[in-house]
């Protein structure tokens, strides 16, 4: 914006100069856009192309037959894993929202001069390897881990109870891993709220609960939408939590895709599942943004 305004005021407006100006943004965009076109968009097309192939004569060989029924077959074969992925991702998103909202609220309104330190602490877990933290959770929740021992000591659960290797552990793990993605956008939108709006609500005899539900929550909706998306998207495609904290009965679509690519080498099946995962998430995201009426946030 500034450059446009500047150009007219401080420079002679020659045709060459104008042409140079027109070219500048494209020259700046070119290398990065090429990279994304070649290594993001082309691979997606490659994925679609592979998804309609069928096994050829040789072992591990696939030929293009444009068999769109591959998608139907893949969906039928893996419907429970698909469903489970969306179920777990939704549960993890709600779990993260419940934990992150008060946390973001406390940082935005109650932290005083500690605000910056607390914000650093929110993202700090990201600097410790994600796999390492997930393994730590498995050990903490295992039958000889700390939590189990404390609960046994308090006679809440019988001795040697295993708290990991179940659906709850997978959901909690997903929620834990993407918690900063939820907290930061929530904080950003809460922090922007004019404190006078809250005072005004109090002056109009609204109690704390009413002020929250009628003023704070609606004003923080952009943060809620951004945070839930940033948590849901990676959670739906994750397989690490289900692998480390789950059992074979908690496998998500990510585990299937991973195994089909790297051990079974059934590329058409894996490709069609990946593409369906991408499309269904995109559709959900667009629908969700439309519905919540905050199109500007992304």
């Amino acid at each position, binding site marked *: 914006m500034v450059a446009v305004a500047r150009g007219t005021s401080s420079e002679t407006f020659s045709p060459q100069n104008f042409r140079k100006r027109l070219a500048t943004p494209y020259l700046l965009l070119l290398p990065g856009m090429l990279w994304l076109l070649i290594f993001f968009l082309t691979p997606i097309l490659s994925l679609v192309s592979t998804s309609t192939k069928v096994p050829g004569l040789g072992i591990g060989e696939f030929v293009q037959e444009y068999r769109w029924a591959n998608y139907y077959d893949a969906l039928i074969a893996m419907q429970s894993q698909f469903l489970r992925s969306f179920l777990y991702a939704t549960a993890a998103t709600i779990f993260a929202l419940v934990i992150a909202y008060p946390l973001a609220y406390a940082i935005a309104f109650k932290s005083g001069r500690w605000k910056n330190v607390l914000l650093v602490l929110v993202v700090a877990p990201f600097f410790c390897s994600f796999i390492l933290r997930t393994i730590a959770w498995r050990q903490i929740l295992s039958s000889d881990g700390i939590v189990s021992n404390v609960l046994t000591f308090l006679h809440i659960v019988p001795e040697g109870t295993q708290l990991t290797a179940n659906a709850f552990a997978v959901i909690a793990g997903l929620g834990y891993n993407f918690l900063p993605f939820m907290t930061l956008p929530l904080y950003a939108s809460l922090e922007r709220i004019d404190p006078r709006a809250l005072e005004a609500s109090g002056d109009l005899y609204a109690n704390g609960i009413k002020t929250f539900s009628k003023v704070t929550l609606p004003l923080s909706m952009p943060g809620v939408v951004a945070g839930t998306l940033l948590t849901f998207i990676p959670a739906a*495609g994750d397989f690490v939590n289900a692998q480390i904290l789950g059992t074979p009965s908690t496998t998500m679509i990510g585990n299937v895709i991973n195994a089909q690519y790297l051990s079974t080498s059934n590329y058409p099946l894996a490709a069609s599942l990946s593409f369906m995962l991408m499309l269904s998430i995109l559709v959900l995201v667009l629908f969700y943004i439309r519905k919540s009426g905050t199109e500007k946030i992304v």
Partner: protein
Amino acid sequence: MKKVTRWFSRNLIRIYAVLGFTYLFIPIGYTFAFSFNDYVRSNMVWRGFTFENWLHPFDPLDICTALNNSIKIGLLSTLGSTILGTLIAFALARYAFKGRGFVNTLIFLPMATPELVLGASLLTMFLNLGFNPGFWTIVIAHVMFCISFVVVTVKARIASLDPRLEQAAMDLYANEAETFRRVTLPLVAPGIAGAALLAFSLSFDDFIITNFNSGTTITYPLYVYSRAERGLPAEANVIGVSMFLIAMFVVLAGQFVGNRRNSNA
């Protein structure tokens, strides 16, 4: 008794925040504690305190190679994505041009696509081209998914600049190049540094995309994951905790420098 309940209700949100942070840091505390474990083969049960793991963190086979690869890949992809992303950010923040919608979409899509799909589609393309995945395919993949994050970070910084500062430079007869070099760039630099730090930590910690495009190359997250079943050596904890402490130091030092700059200005 009444006093206690009132104190509780008044500080409820603070108590909650403390619990929230505790939850965030439990696994890190656990990893730190178990980096001192005198383990045999698998680091699962506490067997006693030792400094051995911290004195010889590179003893286990492959761990040094893995860390070395991760750092190299991290630096290369940080360099690549920071340059490409910063150029795009300047184009988006400073110029009016046709095709802005397309550019925005192409920046947004990689962030809205699960990592799994990014990794799987890239591997599909490499396989279709008969390309063997390895060190360089990991770098290519990391640059690709880091670009969008760099663009968003740097663009936000450029947008937050006061346009009057550049106008003042122009009024003082600085030409466009000089204004950019002596006013704009220094002001945007903290944003670029932040974006680079973000890119490095995303690259260093990436598992899913790397797992697809690594071939036989091994990085630190791949090493940790591959050992998860058989039991992880405590030296892996040492390296994880060290990286965590280094990153925290860099971030806090950056904040400190930023605060001092602000208070001097």
